């Protein structure tokens, strides 16, 4: 891939600066105000770590954060497992009957309004008489994020040369070992990127979580949302800053993972 180097003209610089400001100024303000010593959100009272301290002593908020992180980790893992298998089925399977229907249905959560997904899952859980809490949110998030993993892994598989697997078989691997020894190592970066994507999507979600969670097991976004309705506390800024930092780290890792996969001679998973 050839990178064309274009010189930054004054116009380009200005539009770039304005664009970045539009995207990131609100976040920068939030981060700065998270270090505000004042109790009032809109009045600057000097630098302080007071609200971070307060968050780490806020039992309910910490529980919600822990709930969110564990839901995200478990649902991302399940989604990665199922999503990768679906991607392999779609990319490598013979043209089975109903393949088009299967792939269409697989991608429906990408376009389905979250309210509808959330409501239908709620109805299902009520019908099954399932106690709503950690597992219902986790299952709901798995169904939401699986298709994203499939998209990432499938596009990586599509760029992989089929003859690599054939070469492995020619050199003495049965089809399963050819997959494990050749294909899997080459798609691991895409699988990692898929997991990261699923993790952040689950961490972000309010709508589906609020439909499928039960009393006493609020996720962090739900908890924040309900707190904000009673007025914004500076503590919320501190929590949001921590979440932003976590997501930034994950995105950096995910982009390294897809860099790694492009360094292996094939084009990277889109991320």
């Amino acid at each position, binding site marked *: 891939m050839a990178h064309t180097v274009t010189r930054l003209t004054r116009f380009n610089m200005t539009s770039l600066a304005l664009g970045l400001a539009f995207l990131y100024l609100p976040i920068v303000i939030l981060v700065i105000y998270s270090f505000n010593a004042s109790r009032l959100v809109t009045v600057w009272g000097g630098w302080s770590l007071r609200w971070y301290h307060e968050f780490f002593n806020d039992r309910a908020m910490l529980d919600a954060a822990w709930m969110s992180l564990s839901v995200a980790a478990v649902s991302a893992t399940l989604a990665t497992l199922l999503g990768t298998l679906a991607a392999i089925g779609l990319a490598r399977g013979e043209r089975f009957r109903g393949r088009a229907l299967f792939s269409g249905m697989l991608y429906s959560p990408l376009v389905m309004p979250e309210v509808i997904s959330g409501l239908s899952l709620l109805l299902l859980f009520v019908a099954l008489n399932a106690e709503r809490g950690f597992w219902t949110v986790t299952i709901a998030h798995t169904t939401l994020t699986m298709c994203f993993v499939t998209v990432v892994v499938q596009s990586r598989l599509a760029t992989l040369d089929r003859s690599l697997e054939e070469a492995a078989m020619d*050199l*003495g691997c049965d089809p399963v070992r050819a997959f494990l020894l050749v294909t899997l190592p080459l798609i691991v970066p895409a699988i990692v990127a898929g997991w990261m994507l699923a993790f952040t999507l689950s961490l972000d979600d309010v709508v589906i979580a609020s439909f499928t969670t039960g009393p006493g097991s609020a996720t962090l976004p739900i908890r924040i949302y309900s707190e904000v309705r009673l007025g914004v506390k500076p503590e919320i800024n501190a929590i949001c800053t921590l979440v932003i930092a976590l997501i930034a780290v994950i995105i950096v890792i995910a982009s390294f993972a897809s860099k790694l996969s492009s360094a292996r001679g*094939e084009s990277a998973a889109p991320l």
Partner: protein
Amino acid sequence: MPLLRIEGVAKSFGNFRAVDKLSLDIRAGEFFALLGPSGCGKTTLLRMLAGFETPDEGRILLGGNDIAQVLPHERPVNMMFQNYALFPHLSVRDNIAFGLKRAGMARRDIASRVAEMVALVKLEGLEKRKPDQLSGGQRQRVALARSLARRPQVLLLDEPLAALDKKLRESTQGELMELQRRLGMTFIIVTHDQEEAMTMAGRIGVMDAGRLVQVATPRNLYEAPASRWIAEFVGDINLFNGQVAARENGRLTVSTAEAGRLAVSELWPPVTKEVVSVAIRPEKVKLSRRAPASDAGGSQTINRLEGVVADVNYLGGVTSYRVRLESGAVVRSSMANTARLDVDAYLAGQRVVAWFTADDCLVLEQ
């Protein structure tokens, strides 16, 4: 008993018949080329030998055992892929060792076999590199070493030199031949490049539309093509359509609309049809300023065609001329540039006589 016997093998994809009841014997230690235009089924045949495709009918006997239904990883056959298919996540050493590890070879034996292969293809010092840190020629060598490492009974090569530039291709051709002779291994190469097939192979099988149309040595393929299609596919040729006018002790006289009456020595088996084509390779058509003496061809009958040089292409080693006859037909002639100065060259617009002997002509059924 040949090493490899292909018996009435057929393979269809949907309604497309890729390989059509093809039979072929290949001897041990032979360098065999499958030559044909794209879509002729040569790659499908090779993939059936490797086990990636299963024949719909017929048998593939390797050393007497039918391997048509045997899975690729259980065949004593290896393949070198057109795009090399090197494992991008493994080093040169691990790529070469891949097949040996699967065969359950001892660690020490693997190390010595890899070292032997690396030396064989002259890749010393590059063992730790990954495929993307190698040049095209080096990758080709890794692919070759990897496919040879298991010492297969037959090595299949799918367009092995297509990705190399011309100079590298020529030197690699020589190395492949040398390697094959030294190892005494059976090589089957698939190519669409006739020069490559002629240079390397001992025998060439020409394929068209899923069938073998001729199996011959390079010389016989060029000088005695079995059909008009093969004559046109392999090398350049002048063709004149006509009818047999006279036939006397091995000598035919064919009357053509474009070049008048032509004398042709008949090949064995003799043509049975009356409507034929007379074929003559351009390098066997000589040009001269005036009609050659009647004994210029020794004891042979000479065909003389008068015309005007239409254009001249100087190609270095040879010069190729197009001579327009009075009938409007064009005869191509190529003459070796044996002298540095162009005293013998002809110019466009010059009147010349194009001549060739009866023995140099072929008579082919249309």
